[in-house]
C-alpha cells in the first residue's frame, strides 16, 4: 500500500482533468463526420500520429512485460521487443502503399486489393476479428491497471480496470480520434518524462550505472550485460534460433500488412497523416521512441535486479519498474508517477476503443448494414460501438488472470499463420482473396491445435514459441498456397486499379505491363 500526500493527490487530479479535458475539447471537430471521428480528417502532421504510435504502445502492462524479460535474461531480453523493427522497414514500404490506398481500415483495404465475394468475406472476417481483438487488448491492458491499483491501494482488480477505462471513454465518446490523438500527444510527453525520470532515479537508488555493472560482475552475472548472451543454438530458454526467428519476423514483416497485431492501430495513424511522407515518418519516429523507452526501462530493471536479486516468482519481478518508482521516489512525486501511469494507460485504452469502433462503424455498419447512412448517424454508431467495446473489455478483463499466457497466445495466433500471407498480398500479384481468407481461417484452427489441444493430448510436445511460429507458418502455407494456385487470379482490371493507386513493390510485372499498356503509368 502506498500513502498519498496532498501534493500527490494534486498531481493526480490535475493531470486527469488535463488529459480528459484536452481530449474532450475537440468535441466539435470529432462530431463533424466519419472521417473526423475516426481519422481526424486525414490532415495531421507526422509528429502528432507519431506521438500517438509511441503513447499507444506504452501501456500499463508494457513495463511489466519488459521487466519480466530483462530480470530473467538481462539485456538480451530486450530482443523480445525486436518485433517492433517491422515498423522501421514498413515506414518506407507497406506504410506508403497503405496510405496511398486511402482505406479507413485494414478490412476495407482487402476490398481494394481483392475483388468479388472473397474480398467481401475477407472484409467481414477481418472486421469481426478486429472487434474481438480490440476488446481483448482493452481487457488485458485494463486488468494490468487493475493489478497496479491492487498493488498501490489494495483495490480489487476490477476497480482499477473499470474506473480508468470509463474515464478514458469520456473523451473518446466525445471527440473520437481527434480526442485520442490530441490526448495521446500530451500523455506521451508526460509518460516519456516520467519513464526517463523514474528509470534514472531508480538506477541511482541502486548506486548508479557503475555500481550496478560492478555488482553484476561480483555476482558472477556479467552475461546479463551482454545482449548476445544466448543459451545455445536451439537449447536452453534463450536460443539463437529464437533470435533469428525474431529477426525474420521483424525485418521481413515490414514488407507486408497485418503481419503483427501492432499493424492495425498503426494503420489508423498512417491514414490520419496528411501526406504519404508524413505517414512514413510518423511510423518510424513513433517506434524509435518505443525502442528508446525500452532501453531506459531495461537499465532501471538491472538496477532493480541488483537490489532484489532473489525473486523467483514472475508476479514479484514483473512489478520491478513500478516498485522502483513507488519505493524510492520522495513524497509528493508519487502522485506525479501515478499520474504518468494513468497517462500510459489512457493512451492505449483510448486508441483501442476508437479503433474497434472503426471496424464496427465503417466496415460492419456502413458497408454492410446501412450504406446510405449520413455522417451524423455514422458518428453516433461510432459512439455506440465504443460503448460496446468498453463493456466487452470489462468482461474480458475480469476473466484474464494470467496476462502472459493470453498475450503470447494472442500474438501467436495473429502473427504466425497470417504472417507470410500478409507479406504475399502486398508483394505478389498472383496471391488472391481465397488464399488469404483460407490462411486466416486455418490459422485460428492450427494455432489452437498446435498451442493447446495437441500438446494437451500428448500428440505433439509443448513446443517453444519460435518453433510454434515456424510450424504454424508451414501448416498455413501447405493450405493457402494450393488454394491460391487452384483458384482464379484476381481480375486484371482490379489489379491494375490497385497497382496504379498504391504502387506496391515486389512481383507485379504482368500488372505493371498492363497498366503501362493502358497508358496509366
Amino acid at each position, binding site marked *: 500500500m502506498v500513502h498519498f500526500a496532498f501534493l500527490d493527490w494534486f498531481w493526480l487530479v490535475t493531470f486527469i482533468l488535463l488529459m480528459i479535458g484536452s481530449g474532450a475539447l475537440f468535441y466539435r471537430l470529432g462530431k463533424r463526420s466519419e472521417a473526423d471521428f475516426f481519422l481526424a480528417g486525414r490532415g495531421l502532421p507526422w509528429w502528432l500520429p507519431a506521438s500517438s504510435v509511441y503513447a499507444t504502445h506504452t501501456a500499463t502492462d508494457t513495463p511489466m512485460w519488459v521487466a519480466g524479460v530483462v530480470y530473467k535474461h538481462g539485456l538480451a531480453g530486450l530482443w523480445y521487443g525486436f518485433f517492433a523493427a517491422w515498423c522501421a522497414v514498413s515506414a518506407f514500404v507497406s506504410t506508403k502503399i497503405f496510405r496511398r490506398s486511402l482505406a479507413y481500415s485494414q478490412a476495407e483495404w482487402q476490398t481494394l486489393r481483392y475483388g468479388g*465475394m472473397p474480398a*467481401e*468475406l*475477407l*472484409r*467481414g*472476417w*477481418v*472486421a*469481426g*476479428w478486429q*472487434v*474481438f*481483438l480490440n*476488446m*481483448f487488448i482493452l481487457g488485458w491492458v485494463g486488468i494490468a491497471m487493475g493489478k497496479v491499483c491492487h498493488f498501490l491501494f489494495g483495490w480489487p482488480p476490477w476497480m482499477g480496470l473499470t474506473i480508468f477505462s470509463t474515464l478514458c471513454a469520456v473523451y473518446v465518446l466525445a471527440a473520437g480520434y481527434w480526442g485520442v490523438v490530441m490526448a495521446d500527444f500530451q500523455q506521451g510527453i508526460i509518460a516519456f518524462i516520467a519513464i526517463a525520470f523514474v528509470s534514472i532515479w531508480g538506477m541511482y537508488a541502486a548506486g548508479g550505472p557503475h555500481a550496478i555493472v560492478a555488482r553484476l560482475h561480483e555476482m558472477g552475472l556479467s552475461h546479463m550485460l551482454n545482449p548476445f548472451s544466448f543459451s545455445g543454438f536451439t537449447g536452453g530458454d534463450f536460443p539463437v534460433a529464437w533470435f533469428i526467428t525474431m529477426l525474420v519476423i521483424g525485418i521481413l514483416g515490414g514488407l507486408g500488412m497485418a503481419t503483427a497485431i501492432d499493424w492495425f492501430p498503426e494503420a489508423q495513424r498512417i491514414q490520419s497523416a496528411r501526406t504519404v511522407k508524413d505517414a512514413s515518418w510518423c511510423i518510424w519516429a513513433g517506434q524509435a521512441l518505443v525502442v528508446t523507452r525500452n532501453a531506459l526501462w531495461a537499465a532501471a530493471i538491472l538496477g532493480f535486479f541488483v537490489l532484489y536479486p532473489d525473486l523467483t516468482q514472475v508476479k514479484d519481478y514483473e512489478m520491478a519498474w513500478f516498485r522502483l518508482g513507488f519505493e524510492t521516489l520522495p513524497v509528493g512525486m508519487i502522485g506525479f508517477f501515478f499520474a504518468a501511469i494513468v497517462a500510459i494507460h489512457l493512451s492505449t485504452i483510448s486508441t483501442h476503443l476508437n479503433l474497434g469502433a472503426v471496424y464496427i462503424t465503417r*466496415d*460492419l455498419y456502413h*458497408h*454492410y*448494414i446501412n450504406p446510405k447512412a449520413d455522417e451524423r448517424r455514422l458518428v453516433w454508431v461510432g459512439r455506440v460501438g465504443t460503448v460496446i467495446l468498453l463493456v466487452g473489455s470489462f468482461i*474480458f478483463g475480469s*476473466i*484474464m*488472470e*494470467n496476462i502472459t*499466457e*493470453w498475450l503470447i*497466445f494472442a500474438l501467436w*495466433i495473429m502473427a504466425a499463420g497470417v504472417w507470410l500471407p500478409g507479406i504475399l498480398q502486398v508483394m505478389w500479384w498472383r496471391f488472391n482473396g481465397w488464399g488469404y481468407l483460407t490462411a*486466416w481461417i486455418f490459422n*485460428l484452427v492450427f494455432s*489452437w491445435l498446435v498451442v*493447446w489441444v495437441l500438446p494437451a493430448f500428448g500428440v505433439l510436445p509443448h513446443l517453444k514459441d519460435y518453433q510454434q511460429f515456424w510450424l504454424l507458418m508451414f501448416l498455413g502455407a501447405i493450405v493457402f498456397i494450393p488454394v491460391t494456385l487452384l483458384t482464379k487470379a484476381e481480375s486484371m482490371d482490379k489489379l491494375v486499379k490497385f497497382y496504379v493507386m498504391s504502387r506496391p513493390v515486389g512481383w507485379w510485372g504482368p500488372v505493371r505491363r498492363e497498366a503501362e499498356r493502358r497508358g496509366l503509368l
Partner: protein
Amino acid sequence: MGNELKMVIGMSLAYVTSFAGLFLAYYSYRKHHRNREAGK
C-alpha cells in the same frame, strides 16, 4: 470457473466475432447481387 474453461470461452469469442463478420458479409453480398439481378 477454471482457467482452462475461461480460456476456451474467451478464445471462442474470436471465432464467434470473426464468423459473424464473415456471415454478415456473405448475406450482404448475396442481397446486393439479388437486387442487381432483379434490376436487370
